[in-house]
């Protein structure tokens, strides 16, 4: 597979995963870019025995988990200036609220729910995260309940 095609197909998805994880627009963009740097590095090693989507989401979610190391001593990497202009325009409060709620969940739950909302099959999520499918299903159910509750509280 060609890197550019992957980049086009997955950029938004990976960005959303990072955004759900960290809920910081600039940081999420940085993390997404760093994910693609890893993808670009590892691509020659990619064998078709695995699903490319599983492969990429594993890299991205592992990247998110590593973020915990950088917290408190994170230095903002340089971002292309032209990106910042598009920042958070016309974002509905509800969307913002969803991402905020997700980013407040326990770290691994953030990844699981982000993948679920990205319409990834639960069997694939299980492979990405490394838990059983049953476990994933239970977790997703609980997380969704939690989110629904938070939304209801927010409406009142």
């Amino acid at each position: 597979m060609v890197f550019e095609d992957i980049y086009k197909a997955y950029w938004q998805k990976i960005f959303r995963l990072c955004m759900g994880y960290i809920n910081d627009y600039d940081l999420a963009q940085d993390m997404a870019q760093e994910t693609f740097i890893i993808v670009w590095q590892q691509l020659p090693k990619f064998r078709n025995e695995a699903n490319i989507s599983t492969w990429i989401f594993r890299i991205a979610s592992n990247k998110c988990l590593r973020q915990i190391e950088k917290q408190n001593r994170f230095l903002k990497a340089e971002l292309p200036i032209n990106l910042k202009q598009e920042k958070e325009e016309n974002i509905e409060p509800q969307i913002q609220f969803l991402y905020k709620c997700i980013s407040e969940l326990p770290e691994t739950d953030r990844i699981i729910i982000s993948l679920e909302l990205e319409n990834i099959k639960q069997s694939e999520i299980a492979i990405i995260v490394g838990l059983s499918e049953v476990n994933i299903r239970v977790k997703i159910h609980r997380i969704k309940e939690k989110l629904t509750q938070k939304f209801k509280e927010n409406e009142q």
Partner: protein
Amino acid sequence: MNSNINFNELWAKQKTGEPNKEDLLSKINKFKKSNLKRLIITNLLLIITSLFIIFIWVYYQPQMITTKIGIILTILAMVIFVIAYNQSFALFRKTTNTQSNSEYLKNLIDIKAKQRFMQTTMLNLYFVLLSTGIGLYMYEYTQLMTAFWGIFAYGITSIWILFNWFYLRPKQIKKQQTKLDEIIGKFEMLNEQLNEKK
């Protein structure tokens, strides 16, 4: 009240500008360069120092075996230090980011624990070798001095070595370990989240 919020739809509405490919490629290049630079700088430092010591050996032609052993130990100390330094980076290069999250986390915890061990052991070894090396190396030259200056030279060196051993070394080790312990703790916390048998 709408109890069926369509999270998927909301989720998908978050969009971001796609950075153009050139930006990404330039970032990739920068990343490659900075990694290479770091590797070259540390190794270069070792090579230059070792060359300098070898130059002393050849130029001044030390007569005593203690001097030669001293030189070898000093070089060894630096070689070990740089090898350990390079290896702690290599550990990360070998991890596959394409493992599942739970495997990856376990792997990271292992690596950090290994790093913790390596840094402490290597730093101790480095100090012992370097101090012994310098002590032996000085012997031949202090022989040429009067007793007073000989003792003086060794006295100063010993103070410096003791200062390193009892002050700088523990401080350095503590600094590294606090950092590593904190990270290990965080990774363990993440791993715990996946271990929950609910």
